[in-house]
């Protein structure tokens, strides 16, 4: 079965939003921690 374009678009938006922000938040936390340690 061929997937509709809207399904693919939703998948990209949803996974991008949740997975992307999780990775961004974790990266930010580790950077901030490094900054605090070197301060």
């Amino acid at each position, binding site marked *: *079965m*061929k*997937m*509709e374009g*809207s*399904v*693919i678009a*939703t*998948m990209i938006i*949803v*996974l991008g939003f*949740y*997975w992307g*922000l*999780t990775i961004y*938040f*974790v990266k*930010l*936390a*580790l950077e*901030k*921690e490094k900054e605090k340690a070197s301060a």
Partner: protein
Amino acid sequence: MEEIKKPEESWATRLGFIFAIIGAMVGSGNIWRFPRMMAMYGGGAFLIPYTIALFTVAIPLLIAEGVIGRETGKSTIFGFAKYVGKKYAWLGAWVAWVNIAIMFYYAVVCGWALAYFTKGLTGIYGTYVAGKGLQTWEAFTSSYQPLLFAVIVWIFTWYTLARGARGIEKVTGLLVPSLFIILAVIAIRAITLPGAGVGLTYMFKVDPSKLSNAEAWLQAYSQVLWSTGAGWGIYLTYSAYLKKNDDINLNSHITGFGDTSAALLAGLGVITTVAVTAPLLGLNPLDVYAEGNVGLTFIWLTELFPKIPAGALIGTLFFLALFFAAFTSQIAIAEVLIKNIVDFGIPREKAALYGSIAGFIIGIPAALSLDWLNNQDWVWGVGLLISAIVFSIIMWKTGLEKNRETANRGSDIKIGKWWDIMIGYVSPISIAIVLLWWLKQSISWYPETWWKPTEVFSAGTVIFQWILAFIILYVLFGKVFMPKIEARLAEEG
């Protein structure tokens, strides 16, 4: 001056805390409930109320818990007594008790996952026989095995918690990344199956008509509360091992988003596998999702895995992932009990031993009777909603603005006045609505006998057990143990 904590009473690294808290919140519900809810309530559309619930209820509640835990360095009973006043200690005991009541049966569920993983090692998920799933499940639950695997889970729990925060950090540092890798392998296998588009369509096709269905919203709010662990007291307890100027706000966001990310990964695997294989057995995938958590996981999936290439391996990995997810939650739930015992002055090793023995013994009925387990899951699952409301009350009592400023101190991202509105108004009101809806639902399940405390899922059993718990906890922690609580608080100044 920064306070000095014993190594077992503090996190070694920020990443260690992140793995511990994600491990705590990513539990069986992410794997067996979230995918079903998404498939049944509008696919991508379900994520709209879910995301709104995440920001309006879950993250604000996690921040509230973090404030009490970090500021007091205690778990729920002494945390409440120290933060808001000793007469609130019994409300902290309520929060602890709901966790403990869940712990008694959750260790059994964790044991099921471990048992089904070991069954996978025999190659069981590679061969299909009609009706095998139900037959295997019935033979398993009527044997001594649930009890045996519960013992194993409690030994692991004791071993981990006797070492305190550092023990939790070591275990979750290994299991949480492994869990994500296994879920990714299962998801890749599922979405590369011929016809996987059907599953992805179930998951991501936006059906806006479902948004006008109140049930989809109520299920989304329920899912967020049960899945992110907001209002359970776990985040409070883990935050007790933070230092006074450690972050709260960013960690709360990581918890909410990390939990959902794991659920989506599990959803890709579960929804797609069911969508592709169920029609091969002449089943409608939606009927399989509607079978409930246990039915989908332990009965149907065991029959569906043989229908996919490398099914024996994927099935075994699936139950290993379920065990990792459940076990890292099990130790978090049990830690609420152990930390509360430690707060009363009992050494950690002893507290972990006594807590684990009691946890196993009191959990025996859940290992032997599915009715008992289901009843406890129903009563205390809904009871968690009361705990979540309790946190809003504590925030009100101690000042919303003051608590916001406390949360912002040391945090890597700052929260604004929106948090006051969410924790003070939106969260308690929406949770109260969800709570009343579940009780109303239960009345419709037993129109004639809804008031009976002996029915498994009745409103009567919920009200009866809650009232009993409230009375006992008030007498114990509002009266009997009050001198001890006062003495401990005085010792710490």
